[in-house]
């Protein structure tokens, strides 16, 4: 081999004209990412898989129990109802965010300076941490001295301060309101980049072709911003499926554990009941569900893309 290499390329083989001179450089440049992925994703995931096969109390010896955690999980009504609740929350909150973010994106998509100002305003809550935002809202919602109760009472709309966290739907709606307030700006920005990626002359061509505002939006703008819509959808669905802080802080899972999300129930099993192995098994099941949802979304994208 080395002989032929030194003698130059043989006549049948096309000569290799260019070769990347610094292959080690490429390797060096991706090392940090590999380290990150390895240390922060692959390693913890491996440990989770390992723990899920054990009875793993917080204190004391872990004991290998094979698939027992998983078989227990299959019949765990509380876990599955938390998954169902998470799915319901995901559908509602994602729809609500789109319903708010889309009009906002359309409103701020103009070349005016004032539009830039509003863009910033709508985006601001996004930079607040979820925990902080949720805590803020618990104060706002406090029936005894919260701002909302005060405003409602003063305006004479209600006689007694509402206590939204004491029944299921009001509790859920309040959390959704909080998340929309906090997250709509982010989706708005993604949709805005989509709107702005539609070439002006294509929109103008549609105007000349006689398409009204609605027809232009449905038949030209929406299809052309499909990638942004899908990105916004995937991110919102993923985040909502992993919801925890907002319910932990605002509703604490109540009333009667009706607002316990999937991650919340993993937390309860792991750190209230100290069943780390069982919690790990739950995490893995949730991971499988998330991967399945993402794969489904990707499949839809690729299917729609195929004719291009």
């Amino acid at each position: 081999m080395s002989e032929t290499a030194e003698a130059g390329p043989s006549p049948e083989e096309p000569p290799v004209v260019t070769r990347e001179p610094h292959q080690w450089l490429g390797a060096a440049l991706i090392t940090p990412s590999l380290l990150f992925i390895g240390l922060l994703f692959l390693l913890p995931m491996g440990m989770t898989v390992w723990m899920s096969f054990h009875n793993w109390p917080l204190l004391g010896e872990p004991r290998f129990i094979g698939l027992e955690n998983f078989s227990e999980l299959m019949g765990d009504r509380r876990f599955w109802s938390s998954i169902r609740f998470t799915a319901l929350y995901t559908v509602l909150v994602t729809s609500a965010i789109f319903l708010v973010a889309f009009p906002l994106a359309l409103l701020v998509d103009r070349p005016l300076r004032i539009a830039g100002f509003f863009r910033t305003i709508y985006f601001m809550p996004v930079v607040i941490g979820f925990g902080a935002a949720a805590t803020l809202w618990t104060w706002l919602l406090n029936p005894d001295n919260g701002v909302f109760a005060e405003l409602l009472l003063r305006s004479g709309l209600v006689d007694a301060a509402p206590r939204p966290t004491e029944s299921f739907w009001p509790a859920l709606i309040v959390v959704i309101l909080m998340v929309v307030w906090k997250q709509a700006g982010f989706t708005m920005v993604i949709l805005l980049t989509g709107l702005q990626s539609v070439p002006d002359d294509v929109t103008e061509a549609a105007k000349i072709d006689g398409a009204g505002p609605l027809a232009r939006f449905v038949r030209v703008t929406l299809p052309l911003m499909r990638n942004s819509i899908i990105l916004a959808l995937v991110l919102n669905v993923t985040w909502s499926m992993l919801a925890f802080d907002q319910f932990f802080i605002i509703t604490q899972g109540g009333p009667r554990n009706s607002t316990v999300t999937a991650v919340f129930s993993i937390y309860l099993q792991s750190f209230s009941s100290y069943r780390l192995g069982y919690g790990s098994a739950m995490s893995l099941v949730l991971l499988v569900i998330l991967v399945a949802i993402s794969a489904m979304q990707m499949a839809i994208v690729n299917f729609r893309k195929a004719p291009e």
Partner: protein
Amino acid sequence: MAGLVLQNLIKQYGTTRVVHGINLEIENEEFVVFVGPSGCGKSTTLRMIAGLEHISGGRIYIGDRVVNRVSPGKRDIAMVFQNYALYPHMSVGENLAFCLQQRGTPRAEIATKVAQAAETLDITSLLDRRPSQLSGGQRQRVAMGRAIVRNPEVFLFDEPLSNLDAKLRVQMRGEIKRLHRLIPTTTVYVTHDQTEAMTMADRVVVMNHGHIEQVGRPLELYEKPATTFVAGFIGSPPMNLLPGTLSGAGDDLGLTLENGTTVALRGKVRAGVEQARSANVVLGVRPEAVGIAAQGPQGVPVPVTLDEVEPLGIETLAYGSIGRTTLCARLAPDVALQAGAPADLFIDTDRAMLFDAETTRALT
């Protein structure tokens, strides 16, 4: 059937006026080309006709209808954009059908019309493709198909060929003309390329700084440019414009050029000289009216140093300097000239014209 009338058309962005009251009547089925340097307001004018740009003042008539407040879709116009502006997510067929669908044309009729337009432009085999799968020339053809499919009153083109390579541009130029003969429709075509204007137009509108400099048939503009701007814009290479001072009168009438040479003015060039408001004029002479001694000289010799000699095969272009201006001569291909050498270039004043140096208008 409709012509197009622009009446004192004005466009203003804030306080900046970019189109200064244009008046123009375009006949039914006429092919008019707007030509001018970048930023002179051609596109803005075209976009006002299309309804894509708000009209700051004046009126636009399509036929005898004022369309100032009519939306683009209802003006019965079609536009071909510089970057094609095809719908990227639709097939070629869907691109052609879109405007008909928006008008509620029955399905069967859409199919026939699309097939017909595709036939005319020879894009039938491309109907199922996406725009991204087409070459530049094919995209341009589809854009034209989208324009002809609904048989509009007016075609508008905004530099449709500027993204194509030189060869394809010449070919598409012919194609657009052929299309216009086949489907005679009032057409406004915008370009900054004077060759396109000269070869395609029934009438050319030369614009500069938001004004119309001159409107006329291509040869009219070539032979009788109304201003030094038109003279310097039309023709390749354009007309030589030599500033000078008038001297003498009657048979002694002459023009002293920047390098001190006095050129006797004889023949037709003298026609408008009495209109000159001062002695400062500009002599306009086409390169083909400039010769050398070896070719049987016509006119007056002007000594120059040759800066550049360009043998182009079919002809040779020689450039000399007179003061700060360049004098270009269009010569036979076999002349033996050396760049850097002194030579006498002969100006045939009988085929030249004079412009007022101050107003830049032709003296005729």
